[in-house]
Each structure stands twice: as C-alpha cells, then as structure tokens.
C-alpha cells in the first residue's frame, strides 16, 4: 500500500485530492471472504453476495483511509480533518470512535470474527495485520460484483443491447440490398440529355457527347426514320473506331424501338 505519507497532518491539499481520486477507484477483498466496494461504500460476503451492507458516508471514508494507510496507523486528527472538517462539518473524538465502531460492527455482522480495526496507543488506528487485504482491479471486481449481486439487471441490459444489434442487422442488410437494387436501375434521363427536337422527335444525346444535331439528323434520315409521329431518339457514339448508335422509340407504338448502329 503505497500512500502512507498522506496520513500525516502535514500533507498538502493536492496530495489529498490525488488520494481521494485514488481511493474511490479500488475494490478490496478482506481475508478472501469479504468484498468491499469503496466507491459504493458496500460490504458483502463473496459466498453470500445478496446480503449487502452499506456504510454511511463518514464510515466509508474512514475505512477508505484505513485501507489506504494499511498497515500504518492513522492519527485521529487526520480522520477528523479529512472526513469531517474538509466538508465543513464539526466532529469530536466521540464521533470518530462511533464511526470506527460502526465499521467493526459491519465486519462482525458479516461473520468476520477477528478484530479488523485495532487501536495502537499514541499512534492511532489501523487495520490489523492479521487481516489479509487484496486490492483488485476496479473493472474486474465491478464485473464480478455485477455478475454476482446484480446479475439479473446486468444481463438484461446486455441481452437487450445484443438482441437490438442482432435484430438491426437484417433490417440494415435488407435496406442495403434494396438501395443497391435501386442503384442498378437507372433512368434513361440519367444517361441522356435532351438537346432539341426535329419535327415530332425529341433528340437526346449521351451526356458525355459533344456531337451536333446535323450529324444525328443525318443518321436518322439515312434510315428513313419518320418523325411525323411522337418519338424519342437516343444517340451515343464512340470515336475510335467510329461507331454510332441511335435508338428511336415511338411513343404510340407502346415503346417499340428501332436500334440503328452505324460504323465508319
């Protein structure tokens, strides 16, 4: 336990804040049987996680300080300053001993027979060295705790998230496939742009084309395409070797088209 120096009255405020942050982070196992969660201020037996004892704020802070100082004794003055006076509360020696007594009773009610907290005259109080203390990684303990004491809610939440994700996958998949399918079907107007008309024919050219109307009219006139009825003419070409395609679709013939292909 590395922070013994913090327990003397000469420690500065910054050290105390650092200590405070640290202390709220850890979880402790006493004698391999009692789990203490410093953040929540709870104590429970590992073999009976349902029975949880909650320490009130002052008792919890005192126990945190004792664990942090272990096995060094801590002066009563340090407790009074860091547990009560820091929070603008007044406390007497009696208040402090009541707090220590509460902690002892809590351990006792969890069937830890040995005296956890001992008093060393003129030096203060400390956790007995007969008690083993294991400080565990927060995440591991939190997970264990949640699994053991609150497993129902934890799993319900996790299962809910998992099921939500799983049910979302087919929806996203179907949506993705339908989008792909939509993209596969393009409109003629996406490929061709209208450049003008000839009699009743509307003339469209490939959007990348730069050809003029005269050339297109030349193509269609040589194939005797009649523009006396409504029709759409779609023209595209390739430069080398020169190939031209003109597709003439008559509206009144239910979309029947004539495909003209010319090579040069």
């Amino acid at each position, binding site marked *: 336990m590395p922070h013994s120096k913090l327990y003397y009255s000469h420690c500065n405020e910054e050290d105390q804040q650092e200590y405070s942050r640290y202390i709220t982070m850890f979880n402790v196992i006493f004698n391999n049987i009692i789990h203490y969660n410093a953040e929540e201020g709870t104590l429970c037996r590992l073999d009976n996680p349902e029975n949880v004892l909650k320490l009130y704020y002052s008792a919890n802070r005192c126990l945190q300080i004792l664990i942090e100082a272990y096995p060094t004794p801590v002066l009563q003055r340090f407790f009074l300053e860091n547990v009560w006076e820091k929070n603008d509360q007044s406390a007497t020696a009696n208040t402090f001993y009541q707090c220590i007594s509460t902690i002892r009773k809590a351990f006792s009610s969890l069937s830890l027979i040995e005296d956890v907290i001992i008093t060393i005259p003129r030096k203060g109080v400390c956790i007995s060295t007969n008690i083993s203390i294991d400080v565990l990684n927060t995440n591991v303990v939190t997970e264990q705790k949640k699994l053991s004491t609150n497993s129902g809610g934890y799993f319900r939440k996790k299962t809910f998230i998992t099921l939500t994700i799983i049910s979302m996958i*087919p929806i996203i998949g179907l949506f993705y496939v339908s989008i792909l399918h939509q993209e596969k079907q393009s*409109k003629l107007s996406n490929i061709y742009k209208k450049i003008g008309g000839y009699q009743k024919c509307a003339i469209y050219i490939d959007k990348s084309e730069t050809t003029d109307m005269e050339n297109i009219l030349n193509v269609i006139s040589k194939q005797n395409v009649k523009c006396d009825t409504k029709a759409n003419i*779609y023209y595209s070409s390739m430069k080398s070797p020169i190939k031209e395609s003109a*597709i003439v679709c008559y509206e009144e013939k*239910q979309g029947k088209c004539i*495909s003209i292909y*010319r*090579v040069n």
Partner: protein
Amino acid sequence: MFKKKYIYLIFLYFIMVVSLTFGEILFHNKNQSNLSCISILKLYSLKSKENEFIDGIYHFEMADGNGIITINVDVLTAKGELSQHHVSYTFNYTQKINSYTLNNIKYSSKIHDVGDYSLSDPILMEILDQYIINAKDNLTFRVVKMKDSGYLFYTNKIPLMMCMEELR
C-alpha cells in the same frame, strides 16, 4: 464471458449472411430473371458506300435461368449480295447485377440463304458473326435495366439495341 461473446458473434454473422442472401433473392432475382423482349436492329457501315447492312429483328425470351434468342435478319454485302438468316439459339444464362452471360449456346435452328454474306466492314462482320450467325458458346451482353423503359444492350461500350419488355 468469452464463450458467450463468441456465440453472439457467430450468431451475428449467421444473421448477416442469411439476411443478405435473403435480400439478394428478394430484390435481385425477382425483377430480372424473366425477360421477353423484341428489338428491331438496323446495322450499317458508311465505308461500303452505304449499301452494306444488317436489318432485322432480335427476340429474347429468358426465364428461370434458361432462354431462347430468335434472330431474323437480312444481310446485304458491299457486292450487292442479299441473304436472309433465321437463327434460333437455346442457352442457359447466369446473371450478375446487370450483366447476362449466355452459356452453352446451341443452335435450335439455323437457316440462311445460299450466298456470300461476308461484310467488308470488320466491325459489322464481327457483330454479324458473334451476335447473329455464329454465336460463340459464351456470349456476354452488358444489359442495363432502365426504370422508365426496357433494357439497353451494350456491346463495345455503346448501346447495340434497346429491348422493350413485351406486354403479357
């Protein structure tokens, strides 16, 4: 915990594969498997004094992976020889997005007038040979289904023909 994670992951992948496959079947094949369309073709070359042409009708029937093409064309060569060709092919086809690949093409009937139908223009001759008279075992069209009309059949990057879906 780890075991459960793996089970969830495997289940997740399974769901993904099933849903994507299901989506493909639902959206992909439903609208593109059946095709019955007709296209009137007029192909000619400017090189050969404007009198060399292929003129005719191309008819597709495609459904459930199998199909038939019926082609009736007149061919006029630069030498002035006119021949008529009536060709039918059966085939099965595979479909990938908008590309139809025609496999195992077999003549179901082939009749053409006696005479020389060699065209002087190599591109026109290639189209006549490859897409009309002597279709090879594997024939690929890039076919784009249009939302507002029929199908555009591409060869050599530009549309060879427009094929309108027939009303049934």
